[in-house]
């Protein structure tokens, strides 16, 4: 954990955009109808109310109603529906 923290501190100190030096999840929320998640590592759970996305070191939970996985590929997934909240675990 200490090594990971050190690497994270080092990359943050570099004069580069964060997304260029880390593989962290990039989440784009468009209004309340669509969420686009990039650099994911797959799905962990999927119901009409919750979509759990594996982000490697973290887990993103999209909460809402009538959620639907519109499209998914190796890097990106698009979730549509009535988005209520996003939670990180």
């Amino acid at each position, binding site marked *: 954990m200490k090594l990971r923290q050190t690497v994270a501190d080092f990359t943050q100190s570099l004069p580069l955009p964060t997304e260029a030096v880390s593989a962290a999840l990039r989440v784009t929320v468009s209004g309340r109808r669509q969420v686009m998640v990039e650099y994911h590592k*797959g*799905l*962990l*759970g*999927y*119901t*009409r109310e919750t979509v759990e996305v594996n982000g490697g070191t973290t887990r993103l939970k999209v909460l809402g109603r009538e959620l*639907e*996985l*519109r*499209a*998914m*590929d*190796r890097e990106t997934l698009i979730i549509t529906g009535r988005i209520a909240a996003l939670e990180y675990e």
Partner: protein
Amino acid sequence: MRPSRQWLCGWAEVSVTGLRPVVFLNRCVEHNIPFEQAEPMDECTLRVFLPNRLTAEAQSVAGRCGCTLEILRRRGGQPVLHRLRRRLVLLVSAVMALGLLFCSTLFIWDIQVADNDSALADREILQVLEDAGVGIGTFWPGLSSDMIRAAVLSDLPELQWLAVNVRGSRAQVVVRPAVEVPPLREEDGCVRIVAEHSGVIESIHVQEGEALVGVGDAVLAGDELVSGLRSGGAETFRPVRARADVVARTWYEFTVQTPLERCEKHPTGRKKHRFALIFGKRRINFYFDSGILPGECDKITRIRPLEWEGVFTLPLALVTETLIPWTGSAASWPEEALAHAAEDALIEALERQLGEKGEIAALHFDRAVVGDMLVVTLRCECLQPIAREEPVSLPTDTNEPVEDTVWTEPSQWIG
């Protein structure tokens, strides 16, 4: 995937059942199986859309995830073709229809003239084009633009340039009118200036010839204003081409009569529709007594060609004629409105008479009702150029050139 492309490739709606169907989605991503609109039906079942061609691979992936994959339905172009394999006649007919459609796009089925600013009517241009081999049913890949242009422009000198653009069986003819070459001014010959209209001379500027009238003189139409003979001294005269700007004060009176009552149309409320088909140049009417309209009625004709705008046009068009019968009744119009319309018409006629260089100095309107007619009279005073060149016939009993001839008496030339 766009709906049209999705339809052409074909897609399958499948349900995946298992303990963790979400694993199936992750495996699909790993195996590059694109999917769309994944929707959970319950905790153990997912509904998802997959490309048709990848359902077998998806089935094996589902098996490896401990899920079962069931194809609910297949849609799109590929499944339709697959089903048509059993119906050979239908398949052949569809292929033939597509072939005919393609072949029909190689012929001209509609031809129109665009941006025709020339003095020629569209009909005349189309007639000459047809004589040159461009008409309905022409095989357009065999046409040569240069040949068409050469054939048409030689027959229609009123045109300077012509192009035929064919797009989806529709030919559009674009024409440009020829620029009219102004007539060259002849310096030879004897010309005098006469009055085009009666009036009182306001100004006269003579560039060539000898003025016969002065400012303030009253002249009648046809009176000679500037002589075509110039005095050469010792009672000799030389024929010249007279040139002069003569402006005169003229007077005009125009009268127009318009009825106070007019016939107004009242539709009876009954409509009659007639149909016809135009196939190439032939028209097939689905009614009798084609040219006879039943009493007083308006006819609205609508032609709907069988086409896909910009893609293809078929030589088939549906004609719908709507006949709207009406009855006429006399209705009186407001006198003021009629008078204004008449005055506008009179001013328009006056402006045509004066031309571009003339101007109105004063005008006055008079109105009178005579019987059931409204009579509007325009009286006006104008300033306008009245000089008109008139060639003079010279005696032909001399062989000498005109410019070298010296005439001793003006009575020898005839106006």
